[in-house]
């Protein structure tokens, strides 16, 4: 963030006009990334400082359909009891599997797997917590840390699967889809309530700060 950089006032800094999480602007655009990288490296040649330079090149805007938020129409079989979030989650994970497989095949990698817990097991861990019978913690981790790493893995699975679908949905479209249209999003929001109400400090911290993005909380509060 520019205001943070200005306050810290480091010797050399380049401010870039991209969404948080993408300091080099555009994925899979080597030329674009190289221009940003060269601009920041050229600051090493500036004779005096501190210097905070503004990088002028915006990232390309998302396509019109992505702005409308219709780029990620995943349809699920809702034969499962709508009240059983754990079962819905498990079904959804299965239905997304072909898309996640495709994402891994195309990218040659996946960012899931940090927890070492498979997606189906992740669904069971989350469902157990929602049902008031938390599963065992991962080795060396608190209940909050266990859920954090399991939920982040599961979210990465959903996001990677969604990105593989036609239309190249934007980051914001994928986020809206996850939190508004999936059982996982509903499960995470339910989990947040359970964790905040818990007596376990690690669960309170997890539910209060590191499960639901502030932007989503803000949107929900406005409804």
């Amino acid at each position: 963030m520019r205001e943070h950089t200005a306050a810290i006032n480091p010797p050399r800094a380049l401010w870039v006009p991209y969404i948080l999480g993408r300091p080099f602007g555009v994925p899979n655009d080597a030329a674009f990334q190289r221009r940003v990288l060269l601009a920041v490296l050229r600051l090493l040649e500036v004779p005096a400082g501190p210097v905070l330079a503004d990088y002028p090149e915006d990232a390309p805007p998302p396509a019109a359909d992505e702005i409308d938020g219709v780029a990620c129409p995943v349809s699920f079989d809702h034969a499962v009891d709508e009240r059983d979030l754990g079962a819905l989650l498990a079904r959804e994970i299965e239905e997304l599997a072909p898309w996640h497989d495709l994402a891994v095949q195309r990218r040659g990698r996946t960012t899931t797997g940090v927890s070492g817990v498979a997606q189906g097991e992740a669904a069971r861990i989350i469902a157990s917590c929602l049902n008031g019978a938390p599963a065992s913690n991962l080795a060396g981790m608190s209940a909050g840390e266990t859920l954090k790493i399991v939920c982040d893995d599961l979210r990465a699975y959903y996001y990677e699967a969604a990105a593989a679908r036609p239309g190249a949905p934007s980051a914001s479209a994928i986020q809206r889809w996850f939190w508004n249209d999936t059982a996982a999003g509903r499960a995470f929001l339910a989990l947040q309530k359970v964790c905040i109400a818990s007596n376990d400090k690690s669960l309170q911290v997890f539910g209060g700060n590191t499960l639901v993005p502030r932007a989503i909380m803000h949107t929900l509060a406005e409804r």
Partner: protein
Amino acid sequence: MLDKIKDLAGFNDRPWVKPPPLAQCRIAIVTTAGLHRKGDRPFGPSATATDYRVIPGDTPAADLVMSHQSVNFDRTGFQEDYNVAFPIDRLRELARGKTIGSVADYHYSFMGAATIRKLEPKARELAGLLKQDRVDAVLLTPV
């Protein structure tokens, strides 16, 4: 909070170091994106996360993952192409083209949410390690 930064004791210096010409610079990446290799210990809760992870320069791309605690920044870009937060391939290209001198053997990753005071000892430790790797300049990449 930002207003208080200028009042921090010992935080008023702005050391200005003139590096070698860019074409001779050896560059390392230090990121606060919470990156590490698959199988490394994930990062812990924000308040205690002053530790770092080592990312050897020959780490296969498929091994790079993220366990940052914050959910308030985009991860889809990194999922799609790690270079958008950790531009190691771009650095290697610049080294091959002789725009920079070389790429360091080791890169480092923090979670980056702890206080400046808590992070300072680790930053000093890292500075020593970077010197041993003959690094001239560090590319800091926040998310």
